[in-house]
């Protein structure tokens, strides 16, 4: 089968995807995990119940999450420029990816933490643990297995989003598929990129499941 891309181009794209997913996952988690924690502790009945914080944060996350990634990408270009002094290229793609994935991770983390049994929280409270101690010694360790699955889901979501990041010159596998495979009718590129994405997603999901199982001691 004929193709117009070189092996170098393919590896370059792979690298870009890995960088985009990796970096935005890192910053997304850095923002998203605290968001999830704040949601859980400030909710009504939470250990640091705070009507105001919860009432602002909760809908804000819904707003950001309801924007399609492609809209978000364009809408925050001024913000992206401010942050990384450019609006094209891989680093420019990472900013909207983080903005996209952080609230998503926040919501997933919230769900994971809410799965921790109220009995555990009660025991923590009975021991006179501070808010920080409750989070650090009870909530996070108990939700660890579930948090791994959360990050797995977020990573896979990011891989999908990076395909669109090509629009701002972010590059990556998805971009390769669109600009060569789809727009220039290169069937080989389509097949190869799709195969790579499938392997990525499958690999990440089964690794995530395995780690989660281990953490949960099933």
């Amino acid at each position, binding site marked *: 089968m004929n193709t117009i891309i070189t092996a170098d181009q393919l590896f370059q794209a792979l690298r870009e995807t890995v960088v985009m997913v990796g970096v935005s996952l890192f910053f997304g988690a850095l923002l998203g995990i605290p968001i999830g924690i704040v949601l859980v502790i400030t909710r009504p009945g939470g250990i640091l119940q705070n009507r105001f914080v919860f009432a602002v944060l909760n809908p804000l996350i819904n707003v950001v999450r309801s924007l399609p990634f492609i809209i978000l990408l364009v809408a925050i270009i001024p913000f992206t420029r401010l942050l990384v002094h450019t609006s094209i290229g891989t680093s420019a793609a990472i900013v909207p990816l983080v903005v996209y994935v952080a609230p998503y991770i926040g919501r997933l983390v919230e769900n994971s933490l809410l799965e921790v049994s109220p009995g555990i929280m009660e025991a923590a409270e*009975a021991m006179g643990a501070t808010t920080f101690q409750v989070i650090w010694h009870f909530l996070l360790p108990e939700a660890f297995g579930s948090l791994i699955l959360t990050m797995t889901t977020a990573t896979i979501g990011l891989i999908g989003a990076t395909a669109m990041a090509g629009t701002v010159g972010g590059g990556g596998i998805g971009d390769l598929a669109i600009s060569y495979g789809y727009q220039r009718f290169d069937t080989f590129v389509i097949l190869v990129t799709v195969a790579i994405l499938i392997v990525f997603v499958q690999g990440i999901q089964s690794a995530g499941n395995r780690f989660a199982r281990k953490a949960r001691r099933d």
Partner: protein
Amino acid sequence: MIELKDIHKTFTRKGQTIEALKGVNLRVDKGDIFGVIGYSGAGKSTLIRMVNYLERPTKGRVFVEGEALDQFSPVQLRKTKKKIGMIFQHFNLLESKTVYDNIAIPLVLLKQDKKSIRERVTELLQFIGLADKADSYPKELSGGQKQRVGIARALASNPSILLCDEATSALDPQTTKSILDLLKKINEEYHITILMITHEMAVIQQICNKVAVMEQGEIIEQGEVLEVFGNPQHPTTESFVRTVIQTSVPESVLQSLSPEGAGRLFKLKFAGGNASEPIIDSLIRKYNVSVNILFANMSQIQNTTLGMMIVQLGGEDRDIFRAVEFLGSRGVEIGELQDLQEFQNRRKDPVIAESHKDRVIKEVTAV
């Protein structure tokens, strides 16, 4: 020492208010194993959660070791909580941590160094008999073992009070007994005051020295366990007592009683020491009466025996009087069952009313 003064607790949920506690007064002295019993929904959990302020009273005050909890700052409150251990029906252990780490948590929260944590946890593991399970995870343990870990965790910070919320309700009778034995040992060896709630009278019977009976947010009866078991006042208390002590006379015995039968019917109650004395033997030998035992029941309440007996005494009224007097002098509570017909119709053992007892005494005095 724990003191609850006029505690009210009202919950509001979906616009509906629930009065979970309606003016509860309770005093648990140092060294007590105080049991609170009641049916589900009576307010027991709400009550015990007042003691470590997991739930705050709507009205009323809680005193722990003489100090009112409502005057404490959050920091002081956390400090006080570390002096109050708590164990739960469903153990509430961290599934993600080993037995060792679970027991260590309260000490980690206290920021103790690794070495002293190791010493204390090792000592506690020995105490609960699970030294070989230090590296196991809660999932690998049986219910009884989990509760032992829960107990060790509660004891880690050397509390003076242990709260037990239905601590044995998820366990089988055999395991329940071993956990209760462990609690008793904790009370005796570490001098820890225990407040426990349960819906099983057998639990109270085995280890408590005091009991309070709760119903619909109120304490309807409380006192020394022996007192309450021997002489329940409230119908609910009586039905709880009946779950562990047979106080009703079997049907067959009831029907075999006939008014024409020789002699008069008496109900005797023994408690403590006199239950083991050969009183009936002395009765027959020293007094000129015939003794026909129709029903007898002995119950063990910790180290004390509680006995109940229905006897038919035959002979001259004068002799019977002297026999009754003798029994009374030996600390046996005695009352005559006057109306056999009524007694039979009720088909259960009547609690002899005080006036009834007086009547017997008056009657016999009149002889």
